[in-house]
């Protein structure tokens, strides 16, 4: 089972009516691997994360997580569509951080971080608070634990959101353009936290990002998406230093010029 990658997209397609967002995607993410997904808007890169988080159903193919099918399950040696129970068991291994933070506005930073550990994992309140305090400390927000989201800056909200996701002890973390909604001066503090968890936690990380500098320095592999397909992938050095595909080159030129 450990030979299996942490995540496998096997012939996965996603369509909205006549529009094909992802076309027969095959992608493996190794254990502990850090993968960045880049590409123009509408290229399907966010959809990849949303399908993995089960926020979007897939139309074709199978999604595998940690050696088991997630969208399907084995029954008499055949893959059949998964039940909610099965999906929830597998989904427990995945955490996600969103572009728009999506903190629960009626709960404090601490409340956000202990909610699911208590209701979903069944932790005792004291245990959950201990775990959350550690994580809030890690993201540098111990002093803000009793603040409500509306009392926090965007960067602080996003760091709470990261702590909230980590409190569920996932094996895989998904980051969906997590700095895109932030004022420029707040981007650094969030990236700093992501670097830190990359170092300190044994996590498989998959991120959609527009921060090319960060993708270059942080990831083991970069995938360039274009029109619902992986157009080119390779090490950051290959993709940023010597892109082979014309589309990749055009995209990077456009982004670097703007940046």
């Amino acid at each position, binding site marked *: 089972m450990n030979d299996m990658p942490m995540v496998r997209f096997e012939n996965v397609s996603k369509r909205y009516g006549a529009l094909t967002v992802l076309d027969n995607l095959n992608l493996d993410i190794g254990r502990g691997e850090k993968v960045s997904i880049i590409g123009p808007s509408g290229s399907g890169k966010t959809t990849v994360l949303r399908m993995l988080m089960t926020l979007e159903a897939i139309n074709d193919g199978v999604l595998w997580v940690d050696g088991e099918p997630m969208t399907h399950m084995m029954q008499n040696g055949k893959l059949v569509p998964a039940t909610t129970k099965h999906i929830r068991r597998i*989904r427990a291994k995945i955490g996600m951080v969103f572009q728009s933070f999506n903190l629960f506005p009626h709960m404090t930073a601490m409340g956000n971080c202990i909610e699911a550990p208590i209701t979903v994992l069944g932790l005792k309140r004291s245990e959950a608070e201990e775990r959350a305090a550690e994580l809030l400390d890690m993201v540098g927000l111990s002093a803000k634990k009793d603040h409500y989201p509306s009392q926090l800056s965007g960067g602080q909200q996003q760091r709470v959101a990261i702590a909230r996701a980590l409190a569920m002890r996932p094996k895989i973390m998904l980051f969906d353009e997590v700095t895109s909604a932030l004022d420029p001066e707040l981007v650094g503090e969030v990236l700093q936290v992501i670097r830190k968890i990359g170092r300190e936690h044994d996590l498989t990380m998959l991120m959609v990002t527009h921060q090319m500098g960060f993708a270059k320095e942080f990831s083991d592999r970069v995938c360039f998406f274009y029109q619902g397909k992986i157009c080119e992938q390779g090490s950051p050095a290959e993709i940023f230093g010597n892109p082979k595909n014309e589309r990749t080159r055009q995209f990077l030129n456009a982004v670097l010029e703007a940046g």
Partner: protein
Amino acid sequence: MWIRMLTAMLAGTLLLIALLSANAEYRLFMPGLLEGAVLTVEITLLGAVLAVFMALIAALAKLYGPLPIRWLSTTYIEIFRGTSALVQLFWLYFVLPQFGVFLDAFVVAVLALGLNIGAYGAEVVRGAIVSVARGQWEASIALNMSKAQMLRRIILPQAFTAMIPPWGNLFIELVKSTSLVSLITLADLTFKAQQMNQSTLKTVPVFTLVLLMYLAISLTVTIGMRLLEQRASRGLTRGRVA
């Protein structure tokens, strides 16, 4: 500020009632009318509890129930919104006995008005649930919550804030529609007023006092809902959460 204004209005109304009852012509009617007012308040309170209960169940059933339950809920909502509250009262009080079901007039009053307002409330609750940002659902899924956990812990508490003002309207509607119960023999405020008016023909004092009493009850409801709204939105400032 809003609350201070409303409180001043309520104080003014109560003061006016007190001043008027200093006059013997008015004072004569006070004990009877107050008795009626108590019944009006009782029916309002119990009706409100039933309405909130029915609205929650009907809204959740309509949104998330299996098809037959959705049908049932829609049928309930449309029947009780689409027919007159007075006819509903008559039906429960005068028609049901024809089928061997005898209900106390007080029970009929609470049932009919609670079910009636609950049908309107169901749409209020449904709208408030649907208006909670999609990102809140998505974050709950990402934290692996079950549907019931999401609703109970994340969605309903936020929807609750949004539904307080429209519920305020419905509760006032309820206060006013309690006057219909005078037609099924219950001695509420309106019933008492009509009775006293018929026996004494003192139309001005009787109906002035009744008017002021209804106003005082409604203002109390409004103030209560405002306070609830203030409390619920504490710490919640919409808009900052992009």
